């Protein structure tokens, strides 16, 4: 047989603008279908869970199957409220960028459940190494001031990191939120190192590493898996598969005909593929992985299946490369709508409560932005003093920087 000349395979999404995406490539499972092994399962025995989909909420909003978590209704209400706050915050900040009050913004629309439900599964002292789409890790907390987060986005005089970073690249050690780099994937290895340190010191804290589907192609991702496995590091390795890295479809990152969770199993790491738009599944899987880590059972890789409903950033226009109404057809729906449906179903929420909460949160976010604006912004010249540019390069400013600071101030 003559197979003909060789040809290069370049993956494509199932639809481009003007057509409808065929989401069958996601290989979904029914809610309740995936089994829940004991936390001391051998990593190799999670192989099937890396190819199926852990789901709890069914199409009617009922919690079904072995992963349905024991979680107090108040926690769920808190989670719903945090997701709604996250969405209101994003919406307001997007407008602020269009109004030129901030230079740049990235929303996490459609992915709110992952950061919020995961955060509720961690303990004080644990450390997340996030990307720029896990703002929910901060907004779910009562001890992080929304006004201060907005001041960071404005790079104004109240910005706790002195205008040194793009909007969203927060640093909150006290909230278990590692400084975001802006370079991709580097933090995935660092999280493993942090977790190794906790083990070296005989501590009880665990790390939670974050990466997107696109950046798993970086060598740092594979390096992190190797180190996490070798040293059995107490770390949760989160891969947020939102299908798109700017215009790069997840198949170009290596997701075609396989899963990102499968990478974990190949490295000897217990791995799960989970419905990231299912608040209950996210919480349950996070608790499972956290218990494994805290019990010296080592790392867990979790691929969260979700959809980046918005643009990559305010500099991006997704209508150029994917169908404009894709999210409406995404089979895992909207995480906020799904948890709301569940809570109403169990009599723990109502449409009126929802409307009241929405109004309250919108007002709260608007008031916070108004207050943040009082401290000025990068764009109206209310920026940190010139000398701050030269501080913190080293712990103590060396002579050459003192000299350069003098020169900068003289011109």
């Amino acid at each position, binding site marked *: 047989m003559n197979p003909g000349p060789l040809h290069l395979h370049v993956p494509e999404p199932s639809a481009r603008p003007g057509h409808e995406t065929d989401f069958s490539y996601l290989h979904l499972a029914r809610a309740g279908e995936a089994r829940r092994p004991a936390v001391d399962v051998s990593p190799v025995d999670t192989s099937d869970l890396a190819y199926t989909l852990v789901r709890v909420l069914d199409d009617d909003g009922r919690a079904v199957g072995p992963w349905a978590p024991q979680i107090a209704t108040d926690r769920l209400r808190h989670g719903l409220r945090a997701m709604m706050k996250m969405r209101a915050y994003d919406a307001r900040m997007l407008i602020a960028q269009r109004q030129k009050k901030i230079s740049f913004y990235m929303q996490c629309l459609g992915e709110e459940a992952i950061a919020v439900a995961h955060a509720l599964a961690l303990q004080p002292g644990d450390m997340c190494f996030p990307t720029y789409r896990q703002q929910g890790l901060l907004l779910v907390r009562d001890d992080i001031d929304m006004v201060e987060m907005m001041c960071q986005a404005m790079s104004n005089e109240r910005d706790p990191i002195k205008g040194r*970073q793009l909007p969203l690249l927060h640093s909150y*050690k006290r909230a278990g939120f590692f400084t975001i780099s802006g*370079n991709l994937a*580097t933090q995935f290895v660092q999280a493993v190192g942090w977790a190794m340190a*906790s083990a070296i010191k005989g501590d009880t804290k665990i790390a939670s590493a974050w990466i997107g589907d696109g950046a798993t192609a970086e060598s*740092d991702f594979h*390096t992190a898996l*190797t*180190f996490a496995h070798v040293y059995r590091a107490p770390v949760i390795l989160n891969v947020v598969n939102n299908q798109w890295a700017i215009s790069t479809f997840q198949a170009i990152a290596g997701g075609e005909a396989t899963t990102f969770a499968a990478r974990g199993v190949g490295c000897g790491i217990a791995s799960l593929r989970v419905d990231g738009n299912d608040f209950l599944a996210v919480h349950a899987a996070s608790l499972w992985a956290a218990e494994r880590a805290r019990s010296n059972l080592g790392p867990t890789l979790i691929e969260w299946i979700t959809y980046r409903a918005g643009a990559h950033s305010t500099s991006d226009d997704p209508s150029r490369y994917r169908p404009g109404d894709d999210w409406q057809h995404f089979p895992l729906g909207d995480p906020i709508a799904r948890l709301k449906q569940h809570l109403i179903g169990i009599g723990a929420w109502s449409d009126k409560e929802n409307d009241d909460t929405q109004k309250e949160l919108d007002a709260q976010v608007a008031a916070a932005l108004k207050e943040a604006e009082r401290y000025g912004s990068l764009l109206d010249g209310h920026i940190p003093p010139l000398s701050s540019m030269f501080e*913190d390069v080293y712990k103590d400013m060396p002579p050459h920087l003192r000299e350069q600071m003098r020169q900068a101030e003289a011109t």
Partner: protein
Amino acid sequence: MATMTMIQALRSAMDVMLERDDNVVVYGQDVGYFGGVFRCTDGLQAKYGSSRVFDAPISEGGIVGTAIGMAAYGLRPVVEVQFADYFYPASDQIVSEAARLRYRSVGDFTAPITIRMPCGGGIYGGQTHSQSPEALFTHVCGLRTVMPSNPYDAKGLLIASIENDDPVIFLEPKRLYNGPFDGHHDKPMVPWSAHPTSEVPEGHYVVPLASAAVFKPGTDLTVITYGTMVFVSEAAARETGIDAEIIDLRSLWPLDLPTIVESVKKTRRCVVVHEATRTSGLGAELVSLVQEHCFYHLEAPIERVTGWDTPYPHALEWAYFPGPARVAAAMQRAMEK
């Protein structure tokens, strides 16, 4: 006081710091059970246990990346990159992460890590076991770059680096591990025991960072150099009879500018010597600094002696290596004008 080679002095520094500070950990490829391909960590795992001294996968990005995470937790990792020629996969972690963690988080997180790397040639290592990449580090704001030239300084600088709260690139000229090599590769090797700098205290001491040493005082001209080239320059001075003042930078950046300026203003002539390739090397920065600070004191153009702008060759190693003859010629040119 004991007599130590540079290897023993480096090991002693890590031993002292592992003993003094529970937060110090030491790891890298072949570093644990075996004790390192150059034996710098020999015996440390047996003494401090495998949770503080251990082997790492062959992944420089992973070694440095995990060290940053450990440092963010509160440890003081001392990691080894087996040859400086192998650091490139760790570039992103060094340049974008370790060097800027303090800055970008306003001190919320810091990376007090020490990255040890054997560097330099003269061991028939070919182009992947001989490089001197110091200029790639001195160009990066937020890093400290250090290179000792003898056992006493090696121990004191390594302890100072581990105790320092900034990330430190610690380059070890591997040709000096076992003796003060002066570039005469065809002569018998002189052991460290024959040199006064091999007298090393067994306990804790520091050689401060950003402080140069006047390795040899002199009046005719100033040689600014570091690492292996300190001894090569000393040989060149001896053989020419030129009374050179040899400055061993020890810390390449941030560096000790006053010592350089004071010396050049005194001798009025200057030769810059390094083993690394020439173009955009650290020598270019040193020449600029001398020009900016000493121009009206100079009697002659500043001379620069470096490796050629080629990969480090295997067979032609000694044609590449800037040995005593090349340094001597530059000194003579500087004296003639």
